[in-house]
């Protein structure tokens, strides 16, 4: 297994009881690439990302992240991952600072205070660092979630429908951030059902439908119309 492949999935199947969420996913992603996974609701995008995030096991098939098996070597994979979903994973009864401090301690980050200041600056929340998170607006919470996701210098960022519930400011912040992270060698996988938001971010795109990757290829750049045609051709 060459380690310059950041993500390597082979024949991944996931069954939930009698439901089959993923039916044979093969996917390869180079280090430093940004992949956008598009697909309608119920296509299994969240399940795919959950498997990558070691939160759930595949029923069959193998998944390697940076050469580690996500089932057998989950504890080595987890520190590499930054995960952002539409739920923030934050504690409303703690301040932003305390939340980041907690996650920083969990990951054993050295010089934590400097790092927290740094990430809070990136997401523009330093002024509100000592406010309880429950008093934040939805957009602010999501921005803090971004800070939480990148806090421990992850090399693979998994974004599951990250635009849900975001205000304009946060969306543009998130896109800036993705651009910024691409310059750092950071691999990004983003799932979304929104075809219009920042297509030019991705190096590669994949379309997932009913548990299968029906299309994958290089990005079409900012050609929204071309992409829409492609999408409707595959998804229907």
């Amino acid at each position, binding site marked *: 297994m060459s380690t310059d492949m950041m993500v390597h999935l082979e024949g991944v199947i996931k069954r939930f009881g*009698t*439901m*089959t969420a993923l039916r044979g996913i093969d996917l390869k992603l180079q280090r430093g690439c940004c992949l956008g996974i598009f697909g309608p609701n119920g296509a299994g995008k969240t399940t795919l990302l959950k498997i990558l995030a070691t939160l759930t096991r595949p029923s069959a098939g193998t998944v390697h992240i940076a050469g580690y098996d996500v089932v057998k070597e989950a504890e080595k994979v987890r520190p590499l991952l930054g995960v952002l979903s539409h739920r923030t994973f934050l504690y409303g009864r703690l301040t932003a600072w305390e939340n980041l401090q907690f996650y920083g301690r969990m990951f054993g980050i050295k010089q934590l205070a400097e790092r927290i200041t740094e990430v809070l600056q990136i997401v523009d929340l330093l002024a509100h660092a000592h406010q309880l998170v429950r008093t934040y607006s939805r957009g602010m919470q999501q921005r803090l979630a971004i800070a939480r996701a990148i806090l421990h210098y992850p090399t693979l960022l998994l974004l599951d429908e990250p635009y849900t519930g975001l205000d304009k400011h946060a969306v543009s912040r998130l896109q800036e951030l993705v651009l910024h992270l691409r310059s750092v060698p950071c691999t990004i996988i983003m799932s979304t059902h929104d075809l219009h938001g920042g297509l030019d971010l991705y190096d590669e795109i994949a379309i997932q439908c009913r548990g299968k990757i029906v299309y994958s290829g290089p990005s079409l750049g900012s050609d929204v119309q071309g992409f829409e045609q492609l999408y409707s051709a595959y998804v229907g």
Partner: protein
Amino acid sequence: MQKLWSIIRSSIFHAIIMYVSMIIAIYLVFIYAPTEKMQGIVQKIFYFHVSSAITMFFAFFVVCVASIMYLWKDSDWWDAVALSAAEIGVVFCTLVLITGPIWARPIWGTWWSWDPTLTLTLVLWLIYVAYLMLRIEVYDPKRARFAAILGIVGFVDVPLIRWSVEKWRTLHPKPVLIQEGGTTGLPFAMWQTFVVCLVAFLLLFFYLLRERVSVAQSRHALEGLRHEIDEILAG
């Protein structure tokens, strides 16, 4: 040879054996076994009461083993076995809890005596009813896993409950009872009858288990089919 094997394995053959052994058991209980001198005719409850109790423990043991296997192998068949055994175990448990008082009333003069085994049975009934409550909803692998954990925990709890209940009983005045348990000093004919009853009950248990597992499995398969059809219709 293969044909013979398939006959032996068939459900109807199993049912016939179960039926015949049950008839023999009933004959032995009512005709063959002598009437006990002290307790009189009610003592005959003993044969089926204790057989149900042992079958119940066996059922819960099966739940525990099947749960471990399910967590280990992640196969739906083991889960179906665990669920089925738990359900049948609760049925036998209920039988023990009903026949216990019916036996206790003429002998001890009270319906309920907090006798250690009966109390243990009651606690087990509560645990495994909780198990079935976990499983009420449609099949969900997460719940199946939780139920498997409860199946293991519940069985591990049995000796602990047994000890504590016995300890607790010694602190209370004992109810009037003539003969503790009833198995000690049984005449040979009674022993024979009891063993046949036990065998008949275990055969009944296996028969029910087999039927219940097949129901669980076909329900599972049907649900899968239904999902697939839904997807074909949608796509």
